[in-house]
């Protein structure tokens, strides 16, 4: 009787930490009980080395996952609220706000899903941030927002939040193809003293642990991302920079052509997953 009791107590101790830390690998994400999010799907044809693509959400603990299921508990939505104020604020010499042209932010639903995107008029591939700054300087006569800094990330979070549920679908052919190929080359290029490419971690070793962290496929459908470790929104380029830095390399700067190309390529690897920003990660 005594041994039996002891055994069952040990059983409870073992089961509890596991139950708390490890998420159900088949869990599905529905935000606010009304926006279904595709977190796993068949890989697009141009991603030769993966069969199934997974959102970074599937690699997080169940506690972190649940934060993203309800806007009230998602700390990233605080920044979306701030962006709504900025959206309605008249700035610059033209006396216009975002709302003067676009109306409600919801009018731009689905836009996040197709960026970065070729801009015919400017003859370049543009990220969301570049497009926002183009609006600010050319149409509003306002000052540019710094790349991956608070104001810009807040606005990107707002634009992502109204596109949640839309499948990522960036164009990789036509005029954007050369940038896409540059991004692809960067993805497979080893950098730094550790000689690691993006693919070494996120393609060859996803689902393994890198020290205490569970490696994801490095999908960027959830950006901007609220990270619990720094309690703020994080941009894609800053994340790239952090990764390249961790290979002990001199990194590209945010907003440079290389990172724009890499953003286009990495976004295209997630074609088919849903936009889910602002997401919550650790």
């Amino acid at each position, binding site marked *: 009787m005594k041994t039996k009791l002891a055994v069952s107590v040990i059983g409870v101790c073992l089961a509890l930490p596991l139950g708390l830390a490890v998420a159900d690998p088949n869990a599905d994400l529905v935000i606010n009980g009304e926006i279904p999010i595709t977190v796993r799907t068949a890989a697009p044809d141009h991603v030769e080395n993966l069969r199934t693509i997974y959102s970074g959400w599937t690699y997080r603990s169940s506690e972190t996952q649940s934060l993203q299921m309800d806007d009230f508990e998602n700390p990233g939505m605080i920044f979306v*609220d*701030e962006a709504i104020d900025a959206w309605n604020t008249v700035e610059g010499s033209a006396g216009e706000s975002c709302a003067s042209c676009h109306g409600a932010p919801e009018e731009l639903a689905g836009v996040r899903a197709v960026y970065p995107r070729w801009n015919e008029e400017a003859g370049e591939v543009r990220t969301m941030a570049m497009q926002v700054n183009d609006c600010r300087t050319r149409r509003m006569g306002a000052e540019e927002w710094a790349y991956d800094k608070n104001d810009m990330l807040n606005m990107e979070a707002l634009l992502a939040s109204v596109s949640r549920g839309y499948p990522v679908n960036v164009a990789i052919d036509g005029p954007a193809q050369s940038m896409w190929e540059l991004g692809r080359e960067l993805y497979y290029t080893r950098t730094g003293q550790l000689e690691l490419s993006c693919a070494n971690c996120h393609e060859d070793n996803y689902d393994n642990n890198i020290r205490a962290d569970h490696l994801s496929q490095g999908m960027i459908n959830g950006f901007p991302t609220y990270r619990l470790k720094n309690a703020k929104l994080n941009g894609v380029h800053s994340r790239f920079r952090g990764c390249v830095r961790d290979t002990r390399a001199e990194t590209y700067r945010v907003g440079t052509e290389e990172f724009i190309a890499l953003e286009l390529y990495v976004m295209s690897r997630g074609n088919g997953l849903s936009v889910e920003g602002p997401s919550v990660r650790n």
Partner: protein
Amino acid sequence: MAENVKPRVRVPRDAVAGETIVLKTLISHPMESGQRKDSDGNVIPRSIINRFTCSFNGETVIDVTMEPAISTNPYFEFEAVVPESGTFEFTWYDDDGDIYTETKDIAVS
């Protein structure tokens, strides 16, 4: 002076008398601890919310003393039993003397 402070609360719109309901509150606030230094080595002065209270029809539900170790954007989730229809009043007290309030009505049948 804390900027962009915005309280948010979630209270169910209706409930049955005697039911235990879940209240969720979140306030955006930097909660600067007073322990950190800026790039020049000067101490960044403490600026936190030091007290949070919730009352229902004037009766205290919860009264919390908050300390500098609490993270940015403090979140509280707690339960209350609602005997009758009424109003929840939430109050946050800032170090700088500001007081932020939010009220929510609940209909009890």
